[in-house]
């Protein structure tokens, strides 16, 4: 339950700093900031409730045995590979990816494959790539970046696996 208090404190401090800076240096920034925030709010507000309900329901529908077999403790490197592919093709923004990660956790996925999944999603996010990267930076740039980013989720998953194993075999608490 305290998971969200720390982030809230952090964003409030950060916002206070930005507001104070704008007040001292760029008073006209207040108006621009409010307009941008309003536009973003209008885009996000209707989506978030439905996205959260969908993620919660999908979590309940996931077949536990299959999730545990593909992404669980015994899936090994194969689980990390599989998770990287799933994450790379996962559509939607953070309001889909993170609730889905919780759902997979509950259904028996372990940490290393989930690290790979989130890394793959964050590097390759299909929507973001199509909406922002291709129009702004071009197809050539985008394809080149995707090519060099493709191995990274697997690397992150493997490193996470090593860290988890190191903690599990030592005296410290695992995860």
């Amino acid at each position: 339950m305290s998971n969200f208090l720390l982030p809230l404190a952090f964003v409030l401090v950060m916002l206070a700093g930005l507001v104070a800076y704008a007040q001292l240096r760029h008073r006209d920034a207040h108006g621009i900031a409010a307009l941008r925030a309003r536009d973003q709010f209008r885009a996000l507000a209707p989506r978030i409730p439905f996205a959260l309900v969908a993620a919660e329901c999908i979590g309940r529908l996931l077949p536990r045995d299959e999730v545990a077999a593909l992404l669980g403790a015994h899936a090994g490197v194969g689980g990390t590979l599989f998770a990287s592919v799933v994450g790379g093709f996962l559509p939607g923004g953070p309001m889909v990816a993170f609730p889905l990660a919780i759902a997979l956790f509950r259904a028996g996925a372990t940490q290393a494959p989930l690290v790979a999944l989130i890394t793959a999603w964050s590097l390759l996010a299909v929507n973001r790539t199509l909406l922002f990267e291709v129009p702004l930076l071009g197809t050539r740039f985008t394809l080149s970046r995707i090519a060099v980013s493709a191995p990274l989720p697997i690397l992150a998953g493997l490193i996470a696996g090593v860290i988890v194993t190191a903690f599990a075999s030592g005296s410290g608490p695992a995860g």
Partner: protein
Amino acid sequence: MIRERVARLRPDRTTLFFIALAAVSAGGVWLQDGGTQVVASIREATTLLLEIAPVIGAALFIGGYVQALLPRDLVARWLGENSGPVGYLLATIAGILTPAGPFGAFPLVLALRRAGAPFDVCVVYLSAWATLGVNRIVIWELPFLGHDFVMLRVLASLPLPIVAGLFARAMPLQPR
């Protein structure tokens, strides 16, 4: 005037997609576990929404202020002039600190490219922003997944921007 307002209320495609996804998955839960579990799912989602709403609300204003205040050209010039290890380090730090969504990061890369930054520096910046960006970690990941998991993922992701940059540098055909 009224017609304009109605048009504004009409959900866009992405929203329709989420509405359909929620309806289909709720229907699936209803078939599998019955109506009480659909109600329980909606209750869980509402709790989560109430928890994250203040954070997201504040974050929207942070994004707005950053877009209004960020000296984009200055950052671009600064990163464009530094290549090699120093450039990689600066690009990583800039990526971690860029406290905005894709509407902030990609225009910055465009400015970087125009200022003459090489492909690998742009890749380092984007990889750092995507995998280590403090904005997304604080607003989305910590509330949803908790600090144990987030610490593990951040530790595992620390080398990624540099590795991506080295891959990008080794690419035979550099995008101009």
